[in-house]
């Protein structure tokens, strides 16, 4: 009898992350296809009450490790808790967030297995889970199967659909003991320096407005952030722009930056170097604005405008704002 699908649900300050609901919903789908139960596992402090909500996303059992020592992320301790719930599991899923990417490797090593990282598709074929994931930053896709033990997979945020919660569902919350070892707390988060601005994270954004060399200089970046703000999205940058010091590293999109899959990606003055295209070509809709009609970015854009971004962007932002009024 195959074991449950286990989904690790991530929280910060007692709030569960949307990307974890995506993982739970996908977990529900897999569990149903495999004919096994879905278990939600979470860790933190003072979250036992809030965890009841996880049943509304289809979990058959909700297990909570609630302890002061788990308030902030402690990778080895969190991994100990998850791996103890996952010994006989069919699959262990979590979001490919900063936390999930870190946690998965610890969990897998404790279980003696590997990780299908940053998956964009999971399905069941002949009772077996197949995981599809981009490699070479999306220049190719690998399909993986697991040979014994659970399929440990992280799910790329924004790709899997989170189901609407079903408020009529209630599941009892089971408390897990803190059965981590002292040595599991050797790496401890002392504090979290919050970003000065309430920026939307690139990897979680539904809309990304990204700028390249065609923006001419950092002084024009307000045009990027204005459009991003009007669309409720995040601002990104090409490697050339980051290397030139116009924008910080964390905004870089591409093979040596962040790989993103938003619903809408607007590339402004980005020529489309191979390593940039690799990082964003899985976006659902791509708009390119560039004065060079031969720029490679136009080859993968759904819609293109040939023109100077410094003129097109203000017009575009004004139109978007009109729609939002």
């Amino acid at each position, binding site marked *: 009898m195959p074991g449950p699908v286990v989904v690790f649900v991530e929280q910060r300050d007692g709030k569960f992350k949307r990307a974890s609901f995506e993982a739970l919903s996908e977990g529900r789908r897999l569990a149903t296809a495999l004919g096994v139960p879905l278990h939600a596992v979470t860790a933190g402090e003072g979250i036992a009450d809030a965890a009841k909500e996880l049943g509304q996303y289809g979990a058959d059992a909700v297990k909570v490790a609630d302890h002061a020592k788990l308030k902030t992320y402690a990778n080895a301790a969190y991994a100990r808790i998850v791996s103890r719930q996952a010994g006989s599991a069919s699959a262990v899923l979590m979001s490919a967030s900063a936390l999930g990417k870190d946690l998965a490797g610890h969990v897998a090593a404790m279980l003696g297995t590997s990780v299908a990282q940053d998956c964009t598709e999971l399905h069941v074929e002949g009772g077996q889970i197949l995981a599809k994931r981009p490699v070479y930053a999306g220049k190719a896709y690998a399909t*993986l199967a697991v040979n014994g033990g659970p399929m440990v997979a992280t799910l790329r945020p924004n790709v899997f659909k989170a189901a609407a919660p079903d408020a009529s569902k209630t599941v009892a919350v089971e408390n897990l003991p803190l059965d981590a070892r002292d040595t599991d707390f050797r790496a401890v988060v002392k504090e979290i320096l919050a970003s000065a601005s309430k920026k939307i994270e690139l990897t979680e954004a539904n809309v990304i407005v990204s700028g390249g060399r065609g923006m001419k200089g950092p002084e024009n970046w307000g045009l990027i952030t204005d459009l991003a703000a009007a669309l409720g999205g995040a601002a990104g940058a090409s490697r050339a722009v980051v290397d030139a010091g116009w924008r910080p590293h964390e905004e870089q999109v591409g093979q040596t930056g962040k790989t993103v899959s938003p619903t809408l990606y607007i590339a402004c003055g980005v020529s489309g170097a191979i390593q940039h295209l690799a990082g964003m070509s899985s976006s659902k809709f791509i708009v390119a604005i560039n004065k060079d009609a031969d720029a490679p970015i136009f080859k993968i854009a759904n819609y293109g405008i040939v023109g100077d971004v410094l003129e097109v962007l203000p017009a575009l932002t004004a139109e978007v704002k009109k729609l939002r009024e």
Partner: protein
Amino acid sequence: MNIVVCVKRVPDSSARIKVGADNKSIDPAGVEYVLNPYDEYAVEEALKLKEKAGAGEVTILALGGPESAETIRKALAMGADKGIHLKEGSQGRDFIATAQAIAAELKGRPLDILLFGNKAIDDDGAQVAAMVATLLGIPFVSTITKLELNGRNATAHRPVEGGVEVVEVALPAAFSAQKGLNEPRFASLKGIMAAKKKPLEEKPAVAGEPRLVLVRLDNPPARPVPRIVGTGKDAVPALIKLLREEAKVI
């Protein structure tokens, strides 16, 4: 201070990747290989830590085919002291089997700091470092942009969604380097010459127990046929209409 940096030989980020006829590997034609860019940050950090401490040894470790020796020499040319090349046969290897081979080599060696690149830009894993640390039983901090040593403790910065975690950790410990940690130095001509004479130990890599099987490798799904909406700011209304009515995204 004993510092080990794990590095990997990967296709350059400007390489065009085409899936081979076997649907299991990439077509190697025209692909140039480099030292994984994130590993350069790890090597640079190791050299800086050694320079600051005024003593110590930086060892470069790579697992891979014969060509990986060249990758190790590149790191030696930057200033590392010696290399270990875990030679790979032709068997497939997933992240855990890679980690098992590295951990088997490092177990029992004197080690204060173990560094990795945040991820290799070929298989985009970001998993091996955490696995090696877990197998060695040492703490690990991933994707760091700052590292400060304070005796047998270290403080590292780790960017997460919406902020930066400040993580304290006791040595020995493992870290993975994110862009922003430092500016990797270029190898000098003198460094390149010296690297040729630095010790590079070769030994077979332990097989390990891979668990993930590659079923197939595919080219990315084709993008829809691109469309030029128009020229200049006059094209904006047409674009808005398409985004609203066809794409339905705004």
